[in-house]
């Protein structure tokens, strides 16, 4: 294997497989790629799998979706159902709904594929959301990964768009009412809303164009954009290399984990089959979107307890929470002879707008506040960034209040409480829920940090109670080994950064605002334990750590 011997004589493959591989390699340079990536190191942690779940769900969506397109017909022409589901026999319906019923009842495995597709869609958005929560709470969005965080946010929006366009395709009663709500929201947009509605539906709602148009968006445009974003996302993951959790031997200059081949590739590849298997199990056992129960779309009927798919829930919930009239104050205004319907416009646009604006800008906000321009490859444990964690939980709580509001009627009927009361409570929580969540989370994070200090300095509780010669009872603490201790002390706890003058010696107002935010971020903090403190704890400890053995017990006190 010395370099000189391989460089001189041209390589002659000995086997058939070898000569085939060599043929390809000479033309595409596979050896170089394999040399670069074959043993690339990937850190391992269960929380890194959410992104994988999202990727694999998307692959499954592409496969099951392709199957469905072979049988689905997105036409809104009228037809009479002649298939094998007797309750709907001869009922007038659109061709789209008719073909969805045929996929369910007359194509072998069609129902299975529909259910796999729908479950995979729900899981896709869910795993994207959880993955983004993981990235946020561990600070993985910091330099150099801010742009990849934005790509992730775009993917989340695209996933919701893919979900909603697909949800509407069967043209059943439930999804038709969903479209009707979308139409109502679009019409509330000032100046151009009515035009957008007529352009989208090709005329008045529901028209005969919308299913075909959503179909093209759903099977071509949106998935192509998702695919593009995934490629960019993974390319940047390769450029940055993966982040890793803090621990002994891990720092911002290295990456510790398993090599791609064989362990990581096997685990990640095997995990694809596990995700597929779990989705197949769900599709086998749990009914999702039984469109035959809803009937074809008709603008007149609607069933009680209507729910959108979960990821649209927070917008629907916000629509429910907004009062149309408060003490004779109407949220619908006439402005210069035009109708401005704020009771629809505000809840539909403002909460989602705030959530996504904060989401997209947060890496830059934190970067501005901390003036931290270093690269970060070691993650934060959420407790070690108490204010960020509290902001995240506050936002998540806000989202969940709106999400719960989308089920306000079901909460009322299941728990036998008044629907109005549920709404009033949720309206209150909409405002104070995030504040409570922020305070509680920050306190919990700080308390956990103190617990870490406690354990790092005084060891873990062993549960062994020992009576000392003079009668005092103590619980024996066992010191941590240096690896476990390093995990508890190896973090940064930034202090507030006071306002600094610029190059002209002036402290600008913007800089003062930044300093105020920095104070708000880092005022309450717990510093990691230091070796000196550990020394002091050993010297003056009240009930000192004892490893084992009778002879050491005298060391205590």
């Amino acid at each position, binding site marked *: 294997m010395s370099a000189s011997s391989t460089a001189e004589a041209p390589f002659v493959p000995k086997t058939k497989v070898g000569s085939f591989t060599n043929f390809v390699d000479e033309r595409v340079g596979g050896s170089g790629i394999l040399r670069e990536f074959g043993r690339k190191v990937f850190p391992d942690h269960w929380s890194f799998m959410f992104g994988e779940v999202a990727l694999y769900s998307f692959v499954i969506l592409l496969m099951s979706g392709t199957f469905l397109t072979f049988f689905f017909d997105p036409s809104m022409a009228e037809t009479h159902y002649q298939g094998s589901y007797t309750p709907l026999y001869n009922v007038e319906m659109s061709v789209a709904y008719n073909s969805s019923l045929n996929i369910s009842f007359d194509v072998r495995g069609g129902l299975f594929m529909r259910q796999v597709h729908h479950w995979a869609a729900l899981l896709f958005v869910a795993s994207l959301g959880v993955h983004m929560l993981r990235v946020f709470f561990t600070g993985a969005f910091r330099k150099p990964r801010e742009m990849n965080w934005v790509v992730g946010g775009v993917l989340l929006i695209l996933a919701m768009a893919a979900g909603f366009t697909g949800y509407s395709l069967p043209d059943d009663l439930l999804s038709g009412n969903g479209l*009707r709500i979308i139409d109502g929201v679009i019409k509330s947009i000032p100046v151009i809303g009515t035009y957008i509605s007529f352009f989208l539906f090709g005329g008045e709602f529901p028209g005969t164009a919308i299913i075909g148009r959503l179909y093209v968006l759903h099977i071509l445009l949106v998935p192509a954009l998702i695919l593009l974003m995934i490629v960019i996302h993974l390319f940047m993951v390769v450029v940055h290399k993966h982040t890793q959790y803090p621990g002994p031997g891990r720092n911002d200059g290295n990456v510790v984990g398993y090599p791609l081949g064989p362990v990581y590739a096997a685990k990640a590849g095997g995990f694809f089959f596990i995700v597929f298997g779990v989705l197949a199990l769900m599709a086998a056992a749990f009914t999702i979107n039984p469109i035959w129960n809803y009937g074809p779309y008709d603008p007149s009927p609607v069933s009680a307890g209507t729910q959108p798919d979960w990821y649209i829930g927070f917008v629907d919930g916000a629509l429910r929470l907004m009062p149309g*009239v408060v003490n004779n104050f109407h949220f619908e205004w006439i402005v210069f002879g035009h109708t401005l319907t704020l009771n629809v416009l505000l809840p539909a646009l403002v909460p989602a707008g705030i959530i996504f604006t904060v989401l997209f800008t947060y890496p830059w906000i934190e970067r501005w506040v901390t003036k931290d321009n270093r690269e970060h490859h070691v993650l934060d444990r959420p407790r070690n960034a108490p204010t960020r964690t509290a902001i995240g939980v506050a936002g998540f709580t806000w989202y969940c209040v709106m999400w719960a509001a989308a089920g306000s*009627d079901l909460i009322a009927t299941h728990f036998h409480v008044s629907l109005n009361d549920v709404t009033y409570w949720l309206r209150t929580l909409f405002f104070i829920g995030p504040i409570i969540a922020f305070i509680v989370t920050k306190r919990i994070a700080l308390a956990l940090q103190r617990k870490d200090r*406690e354990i790092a300095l005084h060891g873990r509780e062993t549960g062994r109670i020992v009576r000392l010669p003079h009668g005092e009872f103590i619980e024996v603490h066992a010191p941590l080994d240096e690896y476990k201790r390093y995990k508890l002390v190896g973090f940064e706890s930034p202090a507030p950064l006071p306002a600094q003058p610029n190059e002209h010696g002036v402290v600008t107002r913007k800089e003062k605002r930044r300093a105020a935010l920095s104070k708000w971020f880092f005022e309450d903090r717990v510093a990691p334990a230091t070796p000196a*403190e550990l020394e002091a704890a050993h010297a003056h400890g009240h009930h000192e750590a004892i490893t084992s053995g009778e002879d050491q017990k005298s060391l205590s006190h």
Partner: protein
Amino acid sequence: MGNHSDGSPNHSGTVATAGQNEVEKFQDPGLPPHRLRLADTDPVAAKRAERQVAILFGTSVIGTLVFLVAYFAIDLGDDTTIATIRTQNLLLGLGTAFAMLGIGTGIVHWAKALMPDHEVSEERHAIRTEEDRQAAVRIVDDIVEETGIKRRPLIRNTLLGAVALAPLPALAIFGDLGPRPDKALAHTMWAPDGDKLKRLTRDPDGTPIKASDVTIGSAFHVIPEGLNELHEGKLNEKAKAVVLLMRLDPNSLNPSKGRENWSYNGIVAYSKICTHVGCPVALYEQQTHHLLCPCHQSTFDLTQECKVIFGPASRPLPQLPIAVDAEGYLVATSDFREPVGPSYWERDEHERLINS
């Protein structure tokens, strides 16, 4: 534990009194020593893990066979029942699940139990080196210089102008996605056909309703006469024209000025399309005379001309003026006196148009 609460708020003096970076820190002890697994030391354990992996792969084979049997043995004919489809779905799903989970868990078990579990460390490299940056700047400078774009502002400016205008046709070409809204949303099918007033008919069969059919407390879902006979745009018309018909004690109705003769013997008709975002207001609470929209729970009070008493809607449901014709059937004396359904920018304009 009082002595140890070094980070407690009442003692925050102990917390990093010196600047964080100056305090002596614990040194990174490096990667912990590798611990061998049972399968690394005990050949019997390794053999056992090998067998387990093989069994998991075998399960996958069985799953695939289950799928194929379920697919070919259960045929969907004309007489298929829901139960058959459910059974087939369950078997296809279970077969796929076992086929996939067998492979997946087998590979992961193989990786975890038998492949090396030594964590390795790799250096990170700078994403951008200063040398690369300087080289790139030189290349860009050369390219810009060779195009001469800085020296020839005429070329630059005309190009910018052309590129800025070029996308306009791409926007304009979507102009035919839909017709202009015009006054379409201002009118419904209830407008009388010349002198002929439209009868109120039952949804969905279209049979006319006699006033005597409507007993106190009852509610009818109503569509205009002739809707079912439409060949085009039936759903569009239905989406605007559906009406709820109810009969209350005439004394509990409190008609406002100008609406006194919009009802007949306590029978009132209101648009079924919610003024919030357009769901059908399908729930009638007979005892309280409330109408409730199941989508967002807007609640309207029939005794106050469907004023909003709860929820996100801001406007009352539009009332349809009704009367009885010579044969005793309910008819609409005119179209709605305002646009139905969700609000839109031109709505107020349309309302003034209708009432002028």
